């Protein structure tokens, strides 16, 4: 789970979270056991549809100020260490 969530954890944390997560899972088990045969899911509290905007350009941010917030930038771009895998 920590790998999927991309979190580096030490052994202590892994042990502690494992215990806590199973306690939480036990607590939310009422939801898992619920009989919901003909109950539709609610993803959104309000059934609003087609909220759209016009295709009109708005000003972009100033590049230098955006890059000034980056941990590392180079040549107008965000710099990252080498990437091990290609995008899926």
């Amino acid at each position, binding site marked *: 789970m920590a790998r*999927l969530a*991309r979190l580096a954890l030490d052994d202590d944390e892994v042990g502690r979270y494992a215990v806590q997560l199973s306690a939480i899972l036990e607590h939310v088990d009422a939801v898992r056991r619920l009989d919901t045969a003909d109950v539709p899911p609610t*993803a*959104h509290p309000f059934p*609003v*549809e*087609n*909220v*759209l*905007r*016009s*295709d*009109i*350009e*708005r*000003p*972009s*941010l100033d*590049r230098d100020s*955006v*890059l000034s917030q980056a941990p590392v930038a*180079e*040549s*107008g*771009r*965000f*710099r*990252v*260490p*080498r*990437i*091990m*895998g*290609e*995008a*899926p």
Partner: protein
Amino acid sequence: MTEYETVVGLEVHCELSTTTKLFCGCRNAFGDEPNTNICPVCLGLPGSLPVINRRAVELALRIGAALNCTARRSIFHRKNYFYPDMPKDYQISQYDEPINVDGWLELPDGSRVGIERAHMEEDTGKTTHVGGGGRIHEASYSLVDYNRAGVPLVEIVSRPDVRSAAQARAYVDELRSILVATGASDGRMEEGSLRVDANISVRPVVSAEFGTRCEVKNLNSLRSLERAVEYEVERQIALIESGGSVSQETRHWDEGDSSTHSMRSKEEANDYRYFPEPDLTPLVPDAALLAAAGEGVGAMPAERRHRLSSLLGAGSDLATRTDGSTDQVVTVVDLGLDELVHGAVAAGADPRLALARAANEAAANPDAARLLDPVAFAGLVKMESSGRLSATQSKEVLAELMANGGDPAQIAGRLGYEQMDTASLDAIVDGVIVANPLEWKRYREGDDKVAQFLLGQVMKSSKGRANGKLVAQAFASRREA
């Protein structure tokens, strides 16, 4: 020996020609300075929220209609995975409720490829790998530009109906023509506005089940698509024939060594943890959206090819394709020059010559050609077919017409392309006969094959000004004399 059948399904990502991105007002443009078209939304800054671009929805519906799909209520999901080119580390994409489903595409050879879905999603940023020859694994670090992040895409997923490398190519070629014809995309593969992934498998011809497929990525041209399918089919057959089996994986086409390489096996496949995007509301293709989607959309390429071919007469001997069209017809429709040809023919131009000049010469500069006055173009074609201009002269005048406009007769006059008078032509013809006695003798003895040579000599001496038809007449009358 077992015979194998190729099975290909294609996933085509197409960038939409909107003014702004899918979820924000940043400019959707190719080739701008890095990180100049970015805002809190497309940069995934904390607290920012997406709002769907109406135009993108209209264009997606337009694509769906052109691909004979059913438009339906759709929702966006989040596809979660970490990658530096993704500002939010999730992609907003339509998952199990896409906007267009169940369509088909007819290829020029008459075959049909099913379309499973054509859904909307956002593009990622662009990563440049520094060091290691630009290859990802050998690079020392990478640089990210988010100008492309959030550009609207429609991903068109075909059914596994394609049965050869050539058909795969023809499918993408036709799809590209359709996307351009609808105005939904510029279809430029070289700029990445059209990107193709191919799911390729093979199976014994007797088998009803599909074989294990591999997904091949990085197909940047029609040529690499065709080659990659050929390569992958051979690789998979060889694997099976040698007693092995194909494993499901993602492979990368390497243009350099013309082969595919394994990227990631199924076991390492990502768990995308899709769930409905809570920041967006569902899309419903209501009357207003559908009307706007259809507005200003003309006929699709297949119909336009048919109309253009019919100018040549039924069962034309020029037809090289099963749908009765010619390569010239395909080119002209592809470049959107068919209205020009129709206009010229209506103004009295010879259809075959008009089509030829449009497909061969006008095509060299399609943007200018689309602006040509059909009547002026017709005038040019008529001057050529009546013999007033030679083919070479005609092409020159056309180039000038496209560059600066004007009247073809006046341009011809300005360029000195007055029709060569009979005396000058006779002199050149006689000169060629004197200079080539052997060929002349063979021609007189009835060897028509040499006529082309003699004509060529006259063209050369006249610097292309002689009219081919008149030259042929001149030789014929001298033979009979």
